[in-house]
């Protein structure tokens, strides 16, 4: 599931992905992200917030998809933040140096 919200006053676009980003859904997520980016004109936003707070695992295919999104946004001259709450995902982002390419906002999930 994917949701998008454009905040015109703050000039940011938030895309929220529900669930893990995996080999089995990465392509679908990628298509949807591309569709959303095309839908909102570049003049309306300067920053993309990718909300992955509900994800606990991102596998290599998922990581590739996110990497492509980062490259696409940077090529358009926009900034990007990725919001996560899984320490496993944080470790993957750090070792893959994605945290050097884009701002990672980590907020640990509260245990229920």
């Amino acid at each position, binding site marked *: 599931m994917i949701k998008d919200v454009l905040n015109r006053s703050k000039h940011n676009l938030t895309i929220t992905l529900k669930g893990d980003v995996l*080999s089995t859904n990465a392509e679908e997520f990628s298509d949807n992200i591309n569709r959303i980016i095309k839908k909102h004109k570049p003049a309306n936003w300067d920053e993309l917030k990718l909300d992955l707070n509900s994800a606990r695992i991102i*596998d*290599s295919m998922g990581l590739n998809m996110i*990497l492509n999104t980062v490259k696409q946004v940077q090529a358009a001259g926009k900034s990007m933040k990725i919001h996560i709450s*899984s320490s496993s995902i944080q470790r*993957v982002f750090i070792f893959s*140096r994605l945290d050097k390419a884009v701002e990672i906002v980590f907020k640990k999930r509260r245990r229920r």
Partner: protein
Amino acid sequence: MTYPQNNKPTILVVDDDISGLKYFSMSLRKMDYHVLSATCVDEAQAMILKKGILHIDCVLTDFRMPVKSGLDLLDWVMGEDSSLSTIIVTAEGEKNLVRDSLRSGASDYLEKPVSRQALRGAISRGVERTIRNRQLLATDQEVGAVGRMNQIFQAVRAPEILPYFKYYYRPLYKVGGDFINVLPIGDERYLFLAGDVSGHDVRAAFVSAYFQGMMRGLLEHNTSLQDVLQLFNRILGKEWIPDVDESDSGDFRVQSSLAICAAVVENKSRKVHMINCGFPPPWICYRDGSCRRTMRNYSPLGWFPVEAFGIESLSLDDLAGFYICTDGLTDYADYLRIDPFSLIYKLLSSSDEVCNRIVNQPPDDILVMHYQIDQESDLENLYHPLIFEQYSGDEFKDIDRLQRIWRRSLQFSLSEELGDKIYDVLLCCREAVLNALVYGCDKSPEKTCTIQVTVNQKLGRIRVRIDDPGHGHGFDITERVEKMKALDGSHLGLAIIDNLCDKCSIENDGTSLILNSR
């Protein structure tokens, strides 16, 4: 339990209305019952206690009486002997009362005015029900006695191996055909025997007891395991089948069958001999935490003639231990949608109270045993399997489902111990299994890969091993991972595995991947 020998069934009539009491008493005497009468609940209770509740065959009580009602008497009777039928007499149209009475255990009710015909029918049914209930109770008590006798057979008769032996047994009923025996059978030789007779009744318990006794006797007198199995296979397939010519060499007619799994451990020769007839193939575990299933597996005894049973002999020096379980355990693991090893681990490492919570209303007997051969290490210091699964190459499409099974299994067996680390382990398993299915097995349904996840409690270490039939890579893993860090998105899987684990190594030119994760 003894029962009163009374030719006439005894009915206790309770009614504060004297005319009603007389009507019921006279009517029942005319129907050839022995009748006792009381005008209130207290008097009825005293009468039952004096006479003995087993001497009463049915209670007929009016509902509305001063001080205590018919329902009060019913409650008391149910507490004393729930097999005794109690019939409540109500006024016309008291439907709520009727419903409450039946819910509280009344066998029947009669609405006033009560005709002789209705009275005759209700009392006759009530007496029959009491007799039937008491017979069932007696049978149940006898079955319980047989079950207790069964437990005596199942004792571990070799106290010296107790520190290295763990088992869990949860029978479906008080008596049944599953059993575990651990017996010394000679000079530092021990027999580990697990059995599962078809059925869950006294007959199954009889077959089970017969076999256990015969097996013990023959093995103590040096008969080989193969010969004992051959003999019992013939007994079940021929001798116990009515109207079958025992000399006929034709196929068996299956009436009663016995699944057995036996292991004879010989400490002097450092060997273990294993044979399995009808159990899920036992698991052999090695010191490095890897495991495999035994190769010598036959159908249950009594199904088919077998020319010669073969034994699988293994050196004790390489082994850490072995696990034997019934299909009741694997079925229950399927029901919980977890790997059987996770269930085994939990059952063998938890208190009885926790085990009983886990195994709530199992559909079959559940039995599992573990013998630790590596006696130099204490139990906590060994690697115990949590997941052992085999997948065909075309299952790569089901990777999400497989991952759910791993997650449930790890959460079930290790509860909160892993914390968020569980997602690191799951991600490593996913990457490695996907790689094994897609490249090692070429997505082919003919090729298979295995995943084994083991835990070492003392070190707090999870070890994952994935094997596939591919040709491997033959590269230096550290060098390869360094090259991958160029963030170009290629070959990230191995880099993820290497970074999330404390140690990642490749064996057999890359076809076996071993991950350690603290």
